[in-house]
């Protein structure tokens, strides 16, 4: 048992360790100012990312990300459920959705700045406007795919309206909704950084650009590391939530695999 846990840990950590070692070795003798040795970057890290900076730059970024993401989740799941439930609404909305989805969200930043200003609300709207699409489209698909026998079962037992939504449609669409939420998370991080690069007075994206403009190259590199770590941490949290909410789904899949 302990041996298996150890083996798994080795398996998970092996590739990161190798990549760090390669980076370390390849950059150790570097004299290129834009490509500093990893040693220098790591030495700079604690000086740059102090508790003060975490509070003044990382926290605002994370809060904006969470606000935009939550907004996108609510709007995406609500609209997706409506569109997925009614064939006519779907036929009506589909062309517009396809168009809006095809517009790259970063291009909206200057437009959104015009009416939402350059404050927090602009950044939250930018993040939400990018995150909403995968959530919306996956919810539509998930709601459409609810099993016909389950729907008839619910109907015959008089389970309708809100109860039907809560106990049948949303749980059944859950796996698809979570797939959308996962895609949206990485889009959200990208848009968080981009929106802070355009117009901001704090945030991780803003900090990285500031360092680059003031030629503090090792400091800039540490910002990139922070973004990577933030993305990794969010993805771990996401996985924990997903495992919990969709425990039934993973169990069901494992049991059908066994019997197949």
């Amino acid at each position, binding site marked *: 048992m302990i041996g298996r846990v150890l083996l798994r840990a080795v398996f998970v950590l092996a590739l990161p360790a190798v990549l760090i070692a390669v980076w370390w070795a390849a950059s150790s003798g570097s004299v290129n100012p834009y490509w500093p040795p990893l040693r220098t970057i790591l030495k700079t890290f604690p000086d740059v990312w102090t508790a003060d900076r975490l509070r003044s730059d990382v926290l605002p970024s994370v809060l904006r990300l969470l606000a935009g993401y939550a907004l996108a989740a609510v709007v995406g799941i609500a609209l997706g459920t409506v569109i997925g439930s009614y064939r006519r609404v779907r036929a009506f909305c589909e062309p517009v959705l396809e168009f809006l989805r095809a517009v790259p969200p970063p291009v909206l930043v200057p437009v959104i700045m015009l009416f939402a200003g350059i404050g927090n609300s602009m950044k939250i709207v930018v993040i939400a406007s990018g995150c909403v699409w995968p959530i919306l489209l996956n919810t539509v698909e998930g709601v459409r795919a609810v*099993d*016909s*026998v*389950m729907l*008839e*079962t619910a*109907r*015959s*037992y*008089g*389970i309708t309206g809100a*109860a039907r939504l809560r*106990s*049948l449609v949303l*749980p*059944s669409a*859950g796996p698809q909704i979570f797939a959308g939420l996962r895609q949206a998370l990485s889009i959200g991080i990208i848009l968080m950084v981009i929106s802070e690069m355009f117009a901001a007075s704090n945030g991780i994206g803003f900090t990285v650009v500031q360092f680059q403009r003031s030629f503090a190259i090792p400091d800039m590199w540490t910002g990139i590391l922070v973004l990577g770590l933030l993305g990794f941490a969010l993805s771990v949290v996401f996985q924990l939530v997903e495992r919990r909410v969709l425990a*039934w*789904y993973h*169990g*069901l899949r494992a*049991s*059908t695999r066994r019997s197949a």
Partner: protein
Amino acid sequence: MDALLDISGLRKVYEGSGRRVEAVRDLTFTVESGELVCVVGPSGCGKTTLLKCLGGLLAPTGGQVLFAGKPVSGPPPGMALVFQEYGRSLFPWMRVAENVELPLKHKGLSKSRRKELVADALASVGLADAAGAYPWQLSGGMQQRVAIARALAYEPDVLLMDEPFAAVDAQTRADLEDLVRGLWRERGITILFVTHDIDEAVYLGERVVVLSASPTVVQEQLKVDLPDERDQLNTRVAPRFAELRTHVYEQIQAAKRGKADPESGKADPADRP
């Protein structure tokens, strides 16, 4: 006259993409309160269509269904359905007890009453221990028992069963047949049981309604005069059982031959000498 289920002139035509399929032509029969009636017919004869019309899930093209004297226009309370596809009828995100309890919540029963009904229903299908399991952790036969428990807990006036044992293995099937017989005798509920299996229909039913091939009419109605006390071993080898099943079998064969219908225009030439 005051039958619990009164089906008269039921007709269902499916129309779509230029094709017009008359699944059910003219069905008329009744189910009295407390009866166990089996409906048997050749495969593809619209048994599921019939059941969906009875359950208010499908609107018939013609004729009507009266349930306790009232025409069925949507799923009526007091009716519970057990589907063939147990795996797609139970909700995999709910535990067994939650699945059984779900319909009760919408009947406005108190929590303690719901608990009582769930425990009682699970006990009577022999699954008291499985309350906390997820359906997909159970075997197919056990899952179908859960679906039956869900229907029992609902305390329906009539239980509609759509080929409920078609997808389980033969031994499980025999157990489940005895379970249904037993529940019917203990609880006095009305059961309409649809099957394509002639032996099953004769073994279970007090009465067998034989359907013709599509477009479907009632070929024959037959009273099963076997003793109330039935068991897999003795009933199935009783001479009377053999006679009844042979009779039903011949009726179904006749129904298939009778399919050569000039109207449908798709009669098999081999059927015509």
